[in-house]
Structures are given as C-alpha cells and as structure tokens.
C-alpha cells in the first residue's frame, strides 16, 4: 500500500531579483512514499534544487518567496513550522546531500568533529558516544581506517571520499528521508558507480525514502522507482521508471531520451531538441516548452497544460494528452 511521507502540492517558488521576477518552481505536485526512491530529472536551471531546498526550507528568503502550495511531511505542512521546529526536522528526519561537498563541510574543522558536533547537538550524545558513532558511520560508508581519518580535514579527502563523508553526515541522525542533490555529478564514472551502490544499500538498509536529483537519465534508470521530469520550473511528466523509459509521453521527455548518445550502438547523427532553454526571466506564455516543441498547437502558447493522469500512475502536462 502507498504510504505517503512527502506530499508536495501545487508548490510555487520565485525570486525577486534586480533584473526582474524569476519563477523557479511553478505548480509542482508530487508524492514520495515510504521506502520509495524518487528521481527528479531535468537540465540545469529547471528548478530541481529549488524544489529540494523548499522541502528543507532552505530557500533564501528574500530574495526567494514560496508564493503558493503546501509541503506535507508526515502529514504536517513544513511551511507552517517555526525555525526551531525546522531545525529539529532537518537534524532528525530529513537529511540532504549536496552536489558540492566542499560547500557543505567546513574547511577549518576536522571532518570527525563536524559530524560529532551535529550528533551532540541533535541527539544529545556525549563526546565519547558521538566519536564512537562517527567512526561507525565512516566505516559504514566505506572510508578505510576511519579511526585515523576522523581527524582529517575535507581537503585531505578525494572527491569520492568527500561524498562518502557527506553521506555519513546525512545518515548520522538516522533520517527517514534523504534528499541527494546531484551527489555524483562531479565524480568520475567508476566512483559514481560505488557511490550509487552505497546510497542504494543505505536506503534499503534503513528503509529510507529518497529523492535523487540528477540530470543524468542513466543514473535514474537504475536507482529510482519513480521519475519526475522537470522543464523550466514545471513538472512535465511523472511515472514509474519503466513507464517513463518505455512509454515517454511528453515531447520534452522524448527529446531528452533521444538526445543521449547510446552505449550499445552507434548512430551517425543524434536527434536533439531544437533551440535553447527559455530565459526564465521572460518565459514564453502557455507551455514553457512550446518554442522548442515539434507538436506545438495554438493552445500551447496560450494555456499552461495541467499535469493530468493519463494512465494509472502516469502523469503528463501536455495539451496532446488532455
């Protein structure tokens, strides 16, 4: 049975900038169930990180503004919580792994002391307990000789090892929900493979729900149960992994899949999506994809297509599928 942990309903986030008003997330609705792995894909600037940060209430306000919608976590609206309640939620229940570990870890403290400080603040552990737990965690995420690595600084770790440290930090408070924002994008494929395996085994072992953000459709093809595709601030398609890959319905999803060079055969030319991503300060009217879409009709430049269920569990926002 579906057991929703996170329900995002009609979320809208915008930024008030000198250059104008930028809507980064618009009418986004999605649900993540217990123990489910949800892959959020889309090209850069489509609104993936802002969506994730809204869940954590980490969107900078101002210039940001969450102008509509609800984010229910375990049935309670995150947007109604006080800052103290949010700190508690972030420490204990939801954790996030960022693309660039250097920005999340402090370079002047040892890695071990940073994680143990978090444990002492969030879980009230003693100094000794916390240190033992950190070593256990570093071991869990596959850092060799964790006792001696405890006292190292971030710059003494390689890219892959930093991502392991980030994961250890995220897991430290036994979260039931993990958000991983492009955790492997900056890594080489062999390191990516080990990190993906690690995340998968951790979420399974601790029955965690996971939002996995990436622009790499190869990565979601193997790590996720459900996939949401974002384009220019909108969620344009949502469905099970197999449905999205076998039967993509939104012209953008189709274009994205056609753009990827294949590993098993060689084609002379690829079939790219024409044109460029729209300027988010002056997006087109109607469907944001209409200037690039081969199937665009009159209505497409007038009305934003709503996300509709076209088959069980398969949602599409496109006027071709009314």
């Amino acid at each position: 049975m579906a057991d929703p942990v996170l329900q995002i309903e009609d979320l809208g986030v915008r930024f008030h900038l000198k250059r104008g008003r930028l809507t980064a997330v618009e009418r986004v609705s999605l649900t993540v169930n217990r123990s489910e792995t949800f892959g959020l894909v889309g090209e850069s600037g489509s609104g993936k990180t802002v969506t994730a940060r809204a869940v954590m209430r980490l969107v900078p306000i101002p210039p940001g503004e969450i102008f509509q919608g609800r984010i229910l976590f375990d049935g309670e609206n995150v947007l109604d919580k006080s800052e103290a309640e949010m700190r508690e939620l972030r420490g204990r229940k939801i954790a996030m792994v960022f693309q660039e570990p250097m920005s999340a870890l402090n370079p002047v403290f040892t890695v071990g002391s940073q994680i143990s400080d978090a444990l002492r603040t969030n879980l009230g552990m003693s100094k000794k307990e916390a240190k033992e737990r950190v070593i256990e965690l570093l071991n869990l995420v596959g850092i060799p000789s964790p006792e001696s690595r405890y006292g190292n600084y971030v710059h003494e770790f390689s890219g892959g090892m930093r991502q392991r440290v980030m994961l250890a930090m995220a897991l430290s408070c036994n979260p039931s929900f993990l958000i991983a924002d492009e955790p492997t994008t900056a890594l080489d494929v062999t390191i990516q493979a080990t990190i993906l395996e690690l995340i998968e085994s951790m979420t399974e072992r601790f029955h965690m729900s996971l939002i996995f953000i990436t622009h790499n459709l190869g990565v979601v093809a193997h790590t996720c149960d459900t996939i949401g595709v974002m384009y220019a601030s909108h969620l344009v398609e949502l469905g099970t992994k197999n449905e999205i890959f076998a039967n993509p319905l939104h012209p953008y999803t189709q274009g994205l899949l056609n753009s990827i060079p294949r590993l098993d055969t060689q084609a002379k030319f690829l079939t790219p999506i024409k044109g460029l991503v729209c300027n988010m300060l002056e997006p087109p009217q109607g469907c944001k994809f209409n200037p690039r879409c081969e199937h665009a009709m009159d209505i497409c430049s007038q009305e934003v297509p709503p996300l509709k269920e076209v088959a069980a569990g398969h949602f599409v926002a496109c006027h071709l599928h009314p």
Partner: protein
Amino acid sequence: MSDYFLEVKNLTKHFPLNNDLISRLGGKTRTLKAVDDISFFIKPGETLGLVGESGCGKSTTARLITRLIEPSSGSIYLKDDDLLSFLPERMLDVRKTVQLVFQDPYSSLNPRKTIMQILSRPLEVHNLAKGWTAKRRHVLHLLRLVGLGVEHADRYPHEFSGGQRQRIAIARALAVSPQLIIGDEPVSALDVSIQAQILNLFRELQEEFNLTYLFIAHDLSVIRHISDRVAVMYVGKIVETGTVDTIFENPKHPYTHALLMAVPHADPLKPPPRLTLQGELATPVDPPPGCRLYGRCPIATDVCGEVSPELVDRGGEHYVACHNI
C-alpha cells in the same frame, strides 16, 4: 608518405614537484608522471576518441600536441614532419593546421570583445582576410557554418548560452581552415539536449571539410558516438586502443572492462552499473614500477607489480597493454 595524419611516439611529460611540502620535507624532488610513454596515431579524416578519468593525462596530451607545453621526451609527427623540431615561425603554420577547442567556452572567449572581434583575430594573425569587408564576410560565413546568424556578430560572449559559446569557439577554430581539431572535452559542460546539437555540428563539419579529430571526453557514451577508434587512458598510460566496436563490444583490458561496467545505461532493462575494481584511482606521483592498475586489478599476477606492460598489437588495429591477456 606517412599513412597517418598525426603520430605520437613514446610521448612523455613529467612534472617535477620540487616545491610541494612533501618533496621539501623529504629533501628530494617527486615527479608527477602526467603522460608516460604513450604512442598512438590518427588517420586522415578519422576521429580518435581519447577517454579516461579525470587526471589521467588527457589535457596534457592535447597541450603537448599543440605545443602549448614541451614534452619531457618522445616525438610527434604531423604527416611526415617532426613537429618538435619546428622553430617558432613554423609553429605558426602548425597552428593553422591544428586547432584546439576547450571544455569551458566561458573562459576561452575574451569577455570584452565582440564575436566579430573574436572571430576576426585569427584571420588577422594568419593574414587570411584584408580589410573590414573581407573580414566581416568571412566572419559571417563562419557564424553560418556553426548555426549562428548575422545578428550575433556584434554581441559579447556573456550574451550567449553555454552551447552557443561552444559554437563560437568552434567557429574560431574553423577560421584558419584547420585540418586537425583537438576537442578537449568540448561537450562535457553542456546539458544533454545541447550536447546532442554540438555533437551533430562536429559531425557535419567533419563531413564538409574532411576534418580529422582528436576528441577528448570522459563520457563513454559520447566517445562511442563520435569515435572511429578509441584510446583508453589510465594514470598517464594508454592501456588499450582499437576501433570503436572493438573497444565497446570486445574490450580486453581489465580497466576498459571496468569503465564500461561502471557506466549507467539510460535503459532500466540493462544491468545496473557496478565497479569491478578495488579501491580508488592510483596516483601519478612517483608511481611504483609495474602496471598502474596493479593493486586494483582482479586478474593481477606477480609480474604486474614489477614490469610495466607495453601495448601489444593483437591485430585489426587493436592494441592492449596487459600481461595477462
């Protein structure tokens, strides 16, 4: 006459690390073997894909071939000419034949110059167009070749998206009518829908001008798509080279194998990615004798720790450097 457009023999670039802390404490200079005795060739009109993980020496190889840096030893032949024997004046000619396109179009285009000025510059340096009208005509032609228009000529780089800037960088390379283009990760920073457009552009230009490419990437699907032949690099060494079908369908070297197993296919029906090697990347600093993969390799034997394997010809343009194949 050489059959090859470019041939690289025993090319080596060692960086002495005499200023780093560990070298000073130890009282002796350590050596970073960025490129260590590599050999390969590229035939006219073909694309050689050079693939490997970050730090394995791909950019250093590109910089050596364009003589942006000088090798520690080895030779580079451009058709029948020994490139390293050229004096600076002749290098200007070589720069007309060989052009480099970088990964980062943001930093390779001068932000204070218009596209017109950026693209006229190589024409001036190589004396290819005299007078304003001739230059402008030439530049507009270049812009059309890369899918941009007249309206773009008088704008500045910051007014363009990443993909468009890469088109401008390609137009600049084309300005001197080169025969060999070295692309150092030219699509790595682009989103996939734009990457596909630029990959197609590389193909179209190759057909139109019979260009030869050395195409560097770390993304194996890009390499599979664009290459005729592939060279796989690991920590300063080429471990395997062969036709694109051989490398992807019948790889022999344990490292090539591992790389291919680690790539996630955009197809849930294919097996998930996994790593068949132990541990992390080896270091290029004072590497121990023997194979660079020793210590990670699942089929290593004692000899691997002592003797560095040479590339051995296995027929059909397939070369593998491994003691146990």
